[in-house]
């Protein structure tokens, strides 16, 4: 049957649009932050830090809009899950934005300490993995592609493994001599931020699956089945 879209449904769609807009902003911020770190670009880093306020405001307005929608009309099960998930996803994006900011701040700090910095470890690869994850997770959300969403924790495992090997490499540098400690600890923070972003991206997919199926912990269950 032809499904008419009334104002309430339109507002639900609008929430999703807001989320996507926010996710684009966050992705762009993350990319800029990573670039600023790799290329030691102070201007880009400052732009990222300045851009975080907008993301925070979007999170707030999305939350208020969702709450307002809950009170306009009695929501169905699906609407309820959708709105709860939207609020949670918005919060996850906001956290990712904060980490992008942290990465940019690390850029600025490193600039002060070690101007002759050269990327010695494979940060670009880790950053690329995380950004791909984010892209995939958001695409899955947009297209309600639960199969892709369910793959997110496999992707996250790859990120975690890479993080651990980079960590080893970095501690190796630190052991070589004190002159490496400043650089290496900054890099360490950045890879840690990237790894955390991976976890938040997994949460986004978790919420995506919850909104569509009501299943609350898809990855925990998967672990149990596989384990």
């Amino acid at each position, binding site marked *: 049957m032809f499904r008419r879209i009334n104002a309430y449904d339109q507002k639900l769609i609008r929430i999703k649009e807001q989320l996507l807009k926010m996710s684009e902003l966050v992705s762009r911020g993350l990319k800029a932050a990573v670039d600023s770190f790799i290329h030691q670009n102070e201007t880009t880093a400052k732009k990222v830090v300045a851009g975080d306020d907008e993301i925070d405001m979007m999170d707030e307005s999305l939350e208020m809009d969702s709450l307002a929608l809950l009170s306009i*009309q*009695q929501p*169905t099960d699906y609407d309820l899950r959708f709105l709860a998930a939207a609020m949670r996803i918005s919060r996850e994006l906001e956290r990712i934005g904060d980490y992008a900011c942290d990465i940019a701040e690390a850029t600025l700090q490193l600039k002060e300490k070690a101007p002759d910095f050269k990327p010695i470890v494979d940060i670009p690869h880790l950053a690329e993995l995380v950004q791909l994850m984010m892209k995939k997770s958001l695409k899955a959300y947009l297209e309600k592609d639960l199969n892709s969403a369910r793959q997110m924790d496999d992707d996250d495992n790859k990120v975690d493994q890479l993080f651990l090997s980079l960590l080893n490499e970095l501690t190796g540098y630190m052991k070589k001599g004190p002159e490496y400690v400043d650089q290496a600890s900054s890099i360490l923070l950045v890879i840690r931020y990237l790894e955390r972003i991976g976890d938040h991206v997994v949460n986004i997919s978790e919420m995506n699956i919850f909104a569509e199926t009501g299943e609350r912990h898809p990855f925990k269950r998967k672990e149990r089945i596989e384990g």
Partner: protein
Amino acid sequence: MKMLAALVGLAGGIGLFIFGMQMCSEGLQKMAAHRLKQMAKTLTSNSFCGLLVGIAVTFGLQSSSATSALIVGFVGAGLMGLAQALGVLLGSALGASLTTQLIAFKISGFALALIFIGVILYMFSKRLRLKYLGQTILGFGILFYGMFVMSSSMAPVRDYPVVAQTLISLEKYPVWEFLVAMFGTAIIQSSPAFLALLMALASHGLMGPYAIVPFVLGAHLGGTVTGVLSSLGAPGRDAKRAALANFGFKLLNGLVFLPFYRPLTDLALWSSSDLSREIANTHTFFSLAMALGFLPFTRQAAKIMERLIPDEGPKLGDARYLDESLLQLPELAVDQAQRQTLEMGCIVGDEMLKRVLPSLRYGNDELLDRIARTESAVDALYKKISQYVTGIANNSLTDNLMQRTIQILYTVNDLEHIGDIVMTVAQITRKIKAEEVQFSEEGFGELTVLFNSVFENYHQSLEAFENGDVNLATQVIKEHPKIQRLEKEFRFNHFDRMQSGNSKTITSSAVHLDLIEAMLRIDSHAVSISQGVMGIV
């Protein structure tokens, strides 16, 4: 003057005795009714067990009429067969004779002590159980004190040889004594009270020994008269059958043993040297005789009763579960009220809601009349159930029972509203028929879809109410927004059809929209019933 004083004393004594018995029974019921109820429900699978349960429950409640009310309630509710119930009633006579044995003890001296202890416990206990125990002891004390008053008021009668001689010489007329005892017991509605009166007479030698047997037989029979009378007004045939069978047992008992009152009296005199004890023993003897004589034949007796009082088809609007005599036992009364509410729900569902679509489709006059008749039956049930439930609430209720009564009141109210809504739908249907309005195919299809969703939800809410199923209730509530969406959708489609000039849609518009709105309202009542189940009231 002395005679008048004696009579007043006697009357007052009986009054105290009955009051004490009732108080004692109330206290015991509050303490143990729940357990006794469980026992009566589970332990009556064969008639011998039934007999034991009858003894225990009657002695436990200190009232054979409370036992019969309980048992008749079970039979009416289908928890127990009539034959089993007759076994329990036979046991109940034995239980009552235990009481009689108890009052034959000369413990009037302790009566005031019992009253004192009872009052202390009743007034000053914080714990409910102790309070009820106090009430029970107080009741016993008053009961014994009543006996003392009766007995001492009889003392001066000895100074009137004429009266004393007349009383004693009564023993020559066993049939008259039998009838006097029967009517006397029927009037004061308690065979122990009547026997206590006999004991008071006996203690002053105002009764010949040969009067014992006819008096006791008469008291046995008289004790069942109340039951027969009250069963006349009770709903359900089984109550009448049980009461009549009980009366029949005791009548047969009287007819068989009355001719042998002399040898039986000798037997009683042999059993004890105390006249009061002899009276109690005689009572016990007949109770035993009846139990042994009739217990093997309860099945046959039940069959005879079923033939004497045949089933009649239940009438719509009859509240067959609402037994007034159960009002004193809140647990049971609430169960019964819930059953009745559920039945009301089924009537609203099957006799009203289910007929909505056919009546719309075919506009059958007879169908519409039936809906109207059912609606007044539902109104009647609503009144009966809410009155019954508020009747229970007059007694002290536990929190849990209070919660359940409130839930029942909400539910019957919702059911009554649904009945009203279906009634307006029936009126709409008459209008449709009179004006020869026709729905568009799509429109009727949508009404059917909406109706079926609401009907399903309604049934689930009833099921949730039946089983106190909170999960199911939640489902019903969650379904409501979907039905609201459906309603919006169908209203939109209707307007859409109107705009595109569907002539049937245009002529049926007002009716169509009224119907959609009616169904939405019915669903909100299903939600309200479910919220009641969840304690959201």
